């Protein structure tokens, strides 16, 4: 058990600075863009890792922000999905102004804790995402699918409307016996949707996630308020604190 993890630790790429060239930017949701970046020096990353994007203005002013990596592989390419915060400094630039050919500085890959590694056991994995918080969890689901890993996966994804689903086609494509996808719509659901529309509740969380008795590894990601609420409910539902991994994106 311990030998493979030692090897994994040693082979994990060291974080470094990279120059990325924008290959493509496209609408991901009404408020978010998907950025496909060509990064020749990029070593690839573990599913769930993030990177820091650094922007430099002509007068030398710099701003940097963290973004989760949607693509675990291949090396040489990075996919990000960025949600625009109306008053934000960096996200409106990334979503609206970036064009193919533009260059960005990236520092990464970063984070060896909020990651999922194939072949590390058969306990089930429960992912819980709010909004753009699905990005690192999508990377985990994709890595799980690519590795044909036997651990059962399930994603509970809270979004405002059907248009706000990130990686909608890719997630639908992954869904199957090894990966269950549950959506919660907080504002508007597709016609004929059987469940109530509205904020995620503790009861809905309990009903649509792997029960604590099955000892799932749980990964929760989204705005700080979402993560805090869900992590508290999970503990109330009997999940051990050590089984709950969180990634707060900020905000309320």
């Amino acid at each position, binding site marked *: 058990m311990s030998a493979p993890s030692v090897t994994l630790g040693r082979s994990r790429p060291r974080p470094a600075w990279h120059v990325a060239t924008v290959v493509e930017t496209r609408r991901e949701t009404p408020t978010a863009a998907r950025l496909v970046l060509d990064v020749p020096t990029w070593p690839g990353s573990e599913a769930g890792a993030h990177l820091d994007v650094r*922007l430099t*203005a002509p007068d*030398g002013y710099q*701003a940097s922000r963290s973004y989760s990596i949607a693509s675990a592989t291949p090396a040489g390419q990075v996919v990000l999905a960025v949600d625009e915060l109306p008053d934000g400094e960096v996200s409106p*630039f990334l979503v609206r*102004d970036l064009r193919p050919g533009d260059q960005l*500085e990236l520092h990464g890959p970063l984070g060896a804790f909020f990651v999922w590694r194939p072949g590390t056991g058969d306990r089930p994995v429960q992912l819980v995402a709010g909004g753009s918080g699905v990005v690192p969890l999508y990377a985990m689901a994709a890595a799980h699918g690519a590795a044909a890993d036997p651990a059962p996966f399930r994603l509970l994804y809270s979004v405002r409307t059907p248009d706000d689903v990130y990686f909608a086609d890719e997630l639908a494509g992954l869904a199957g016996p090894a990966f269950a996808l549950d959506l919660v719509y907080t504002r508007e659901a597709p016609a004929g949707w059987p469940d109530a529309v509205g904020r995620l509740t503790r009861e809905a969380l309990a009903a649509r996630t792997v029960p604590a008795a099955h000892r799932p590894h749980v990964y929760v990601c989204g705005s700080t308020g979402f993560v805090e609420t869900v992590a508290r409910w999970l503990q109330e539902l009997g999940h051990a604190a050590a089984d709950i991994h969180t990634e707060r994106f900020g905000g309320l």
Partner: protein
Amino acid sequence: MSFVTRGFSGRRREPDTRLPPGQTLVQDWPVLSAGPTPHVDTADWELTVQDETGTDHRWSWDELLALGVEDVTVDIHCVTHWSRLDMGWRGVSLDKIFEDVESEHEYVMAHSYGGYTTNVPLEDLLDGKAWIATEADGAPLDPEHGGPARLLVPHLYFWKSAKWVRGLTMMPDNDPGFWEQYGYHLYGDPWKEERYW
């Protein structure tokens, strides 16, 4: 640093001769927090000044206000590069507080509810240069901005204006407070850009 991101300028940075070097003018009031926000009721609030004999001089909320509240208009400069100009504040001058305190020591450590500390030379708190502020922008200070009361030392970087102030301890030496231990300048004059060690 030769790398430039095409089209990126960041938040608007307007030059203004009233701004110290490296500062940007803002109209809003950004909230910085290095920890959970303490919520202190004025009924429980107390200010303690401790001198070298260990004697505590104490003021309750009402006793503080009874010392006399004044209105001041000052500029504030945060070390994270934003400044606000002509900001209206209300508070009690520290001259009033120190009237009652005898001390040979030349330095003060400000202590806050929540554990924050910052060091300031005594002379920077006297002669109308500093206040225990209770209101800003015409309203009582809300907890996010340091309410019910914060130190206001506008001629130094704003981390010296300790939020949620509860005590001032006289010190023989200029010992570093919280940020001063972790990399920030012992004095913090914005006009000399004394940001870091």
